[in-house]
């Protein structure tokens, strides 16, 4: 058959160890499960986003998956220009009849790792390091903070942002310095939501024998022993599912919100963080998870504020 899926990665590139890489893993899994090859493009310039999405549609892609909130405008334009093509956008809502929007409840996942952080912290101070100060990152930060305070109302959360240019997502040395400065201020667990910059944060934690929490993909394998857990954002699953559904004909437009309930976000428990993430913590996180799903705990979504 000639089903043709396409994917457009955003500026970090498909091997950013985090968000785009998760999408890449999803599409690779789709490829290996179905044997269907896909069109792909890594955006390098702001102006390329539109061109890339439209080009996919023009090339006759059946579904175009756009990764990242920044592609919303491009998807909107392309979807209007190619009403017969299916579009899926991750992390943003585009309200058009041929667009499926998948957004995640990052605050919920962040809340859970916040609990783990608070419980693992001996000093009562934990850190958060974001890439750029943009709403999406604040969403992570807010959920995390609420989780920390939920587990330990007296805890302190130090927040840092890396920079104001796109370089902020790719500056591991800066990330490592920020982490160190937080450790100097007594933090002993740090959560990085900063793309490539986060690698420096995790490294720094490993160097200083502190704990770190990864983001998006499972990053625990990077530094076994100092990785507390990773806040998983199952972009891989979302991409895989949307492509599969398009192939099967079950693809539907509209908004999909993937939270804890849908297993869209979560935390990692694996061989790498065994012992670091204790049974107590896992239990507490699972309990909170159930409470959130049941509506007993309300985690604030920054976007709704």
């Amino acid at each position: 058959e000639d089903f043709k899926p396409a994917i457009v990665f955003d500026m970090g590139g498909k091997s950013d160890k985090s968000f785009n890489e998760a999408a890449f893993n999803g599409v690779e899994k789709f490829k290996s499960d179905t044997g269907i090859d896909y069109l792909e493009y890594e955006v390098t310039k702001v102006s390329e986003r539109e061109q890339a999405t439209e080009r996919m549609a023009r090339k006759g892609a059946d579904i175009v998956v756009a990764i990242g909130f920044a592609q919303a405008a491009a998807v909107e334009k392309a979807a209007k220009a190619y009403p017969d093509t299916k579009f899926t956008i991750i992390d943003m809502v585009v309200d058009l009849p041929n667009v499926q929007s998948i957004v995640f409840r990052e605050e919920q996942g962040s809340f859970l790792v916040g609990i783990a952080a608070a419980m693992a912290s001996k000093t009562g101070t934990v850190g958060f390091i974001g890439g750029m100060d943009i709403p999406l990152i604040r969403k992570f930060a807010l959920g995390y903070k609420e989780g920390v305070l939920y587990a330990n109302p007296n805890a302190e959360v130090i927040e840092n942002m890396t920079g104001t240019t796109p370089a902020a997502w790719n500056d591991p040395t800066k990330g490592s310095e920020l982490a160190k400065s937080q450790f100097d201020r007594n933090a002993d667990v740090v959560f990085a939501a900063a793309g490539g910059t986060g690698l420096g944060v995790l490294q720094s934690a490993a160097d200083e024998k502190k704990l770190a929490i990864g983001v998006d993909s499972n990053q625990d394998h990077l530094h076994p022993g100092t990785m507390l857990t990773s806040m998983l954002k199952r972009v891989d699953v979302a991409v895989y599912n949307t492509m599969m559904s398009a192939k099967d004909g079950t693809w539907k437009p509209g908004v999909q919100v993937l939270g804890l309930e849908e297993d869209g976000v979560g935390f990692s428990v694996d061989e790498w963080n065994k012992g670091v993430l204790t049974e107590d913590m896992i239990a507490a996180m699972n309990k909170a998870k159930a409470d959130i799903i049941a509506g007993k705990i309300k985690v604030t979504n920054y976007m709704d504020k």
Partner: protein
Amino acid sequence: METFQIIVLLLDATFRVATPLVLAALAGMFSERAGVVDIGLEGKMLGAAFAAAAVAAVSGSAWVGLGAGILTSIALSMLHAYACVTHKGNQVVSGMAINIVVAGLTPTLGYAWFSMGGQTPSLSGDARFKSIILPFAESSRDIPIFGYLYVELISNHNIIVYLAAAAVPICAWILYKTRFGLRVRAVGENPHAVDTAGISVDWLRYKALIMTGFLCGIAGSYLSTAHGAGFIRDMTAGKGYLALAALIFGKWRPVPTLFACLLFAFTDAVQARLQGVDLPLIGVIPVQFIQALPYILTVLLLAGFVGKAHPPKAIGEPYIKER
């Protein structure tokens, strides 16, 4: 936390951040003092960072990686010399071209060699320069003030930080107290004088650029094998330009340049701590303004205190035998 402690920890961070800046700025000093503009510091650092991480990952030795980083940086420096000295090309364009080529080539090769999306494997063990505990660090811990300073500030850095510290007096000595330094300073001021003194202008500039490559190579290797633990694309993130700014700020002299680098690094360290802090009267300053602080400070200092900088007179001009 005590103010004293805070300051010591800030300075500690300052040293780590300043190290690549100092090395790169000193590298730029040799080039620019010899009359060759070098905005390719960024590319040379990036190339070295990649080579060092790649070779360290394969060989398992940080030292071998450092060697590879230095060689790569020297090779790039020689390309710059070939374009600007041998063929009298535009020095700014050459530097930019090198920056761009390296920015593209490092992930391309990284992808081809490691299939990790242009990154190198993460380095651990001997493949990375680790912190060195200086002698007596533990025993002196209890000495008031000094002990704390020694343990927190002086001890416990990796070898390249100490190298950078040593590089300043060594480079100053080379520049001011050796034949090579005299000639480098002369050729940047008046290449005709050097030529008529029977010294080859081109060869002298090549030698200066080898020094540049050497120092820049250490700076780049530091990023990927000492401060960080592996290469990731564009990891220099503008440090080359900042080093150049520090060099100009320091008026092309080693010691003032060192202080300029320390100042940049210090504002960077302070900036991290000011984020989200509720300042009396002002409240919480938006993080973007705090992040812009080092740059605003630089502009203010330049406008207020430093005054006119006099670059080497022949800088930027290819040497053409004429009157």
